């Protein structure tokens, strides 16, 4: 079952600058410090938006998918994260329906945008 919108992922070319801007414009506060994710080819900061968040990301691997996305489409909204109560169960049922999955790990899974009208969804096991 889908429980709600967890966060919106935003891809930018300069993380510090974007974080400062969003905090200034919208009065948001960081939930995390700058965190490097070498496996994902990016660094990120989560900003608190009520009970949800913005995930602001900057590519760190110039050959990675995020860097290519940034080059192709420019800065902006990148993915939508949904909290679900049972990622593995949901993914199994989605795969049975022919939905293509990407970048799967413990407690999370990305769905290929070609299955979902161009939207990159990230499903994440809800902690709530």
């Amino acid at each position, binding site marked *: 079952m*889908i*429980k*709600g*919108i967890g*966060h*919106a992922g*935003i891809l*930018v070319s300069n993380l510090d600058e*974007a974080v400062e*801007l*969003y905090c*200034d*414009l*919208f*009065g*948001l506060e960081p939930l995390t410090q700058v965190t490097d994710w070498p496996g994902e080819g990016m660094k990120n900061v989560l900003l608190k*938006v*009520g*009970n*949800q968040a913005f995930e602001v990301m900057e590519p760190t691997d110039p050959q990675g998918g995020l860097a290519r996305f940034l080059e192709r*489409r*420019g*800065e*902006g*909204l*990148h*993915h*939508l994260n*949904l*909290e679900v109560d049972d990622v593995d169960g949901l993914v199994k049922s*989605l795969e049975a*329906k022919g*939905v293509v999955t990407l970048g799967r790990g413990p407690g999370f899974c990305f*769905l290929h*945008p070609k*299955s*979902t*009208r*161009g*939207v*990159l969804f990230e499903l994440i096991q809800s902690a709530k």
Partner: protein
Amino acid sequence: MIKRIDHVSIAVKDLDEALGVFKAVFGLESVHQEEIPDQGVKAALIKVGDGEIELVEPIDPEGGVAKFIERRGEGIHHICLEVDNIDEELKSLEAKGVALIDKQPRRGLAGMIGFVHPKATKGVLVELAQKV
């Protein structure tokens, strides 16, 4: 003050077909549909927990959503943040020199709304909405 993510809006070419996809994939169904001529779209709201996913299909080929799809294809179009006071938010953004699409709040699907220009927000089209 920003309260929460109210909805995320997805631009699609065919609303009925997209609703079918979201129902088949996620078991999510639309709770409301409406034409919004001044935004050049017809829209459907899908409840997701206490937030919503909005699907918008262009009905005006010259409108912003039609141009978005032409340029970038279907996908996430904007994010709407719920605020407690839309007048105050727009005024404070304007005072900071932020480019606004709407300097005055207007009626939208999510309440009294105003759009911030994506050039001011690193490419993110942000809608602010106060519930009415």
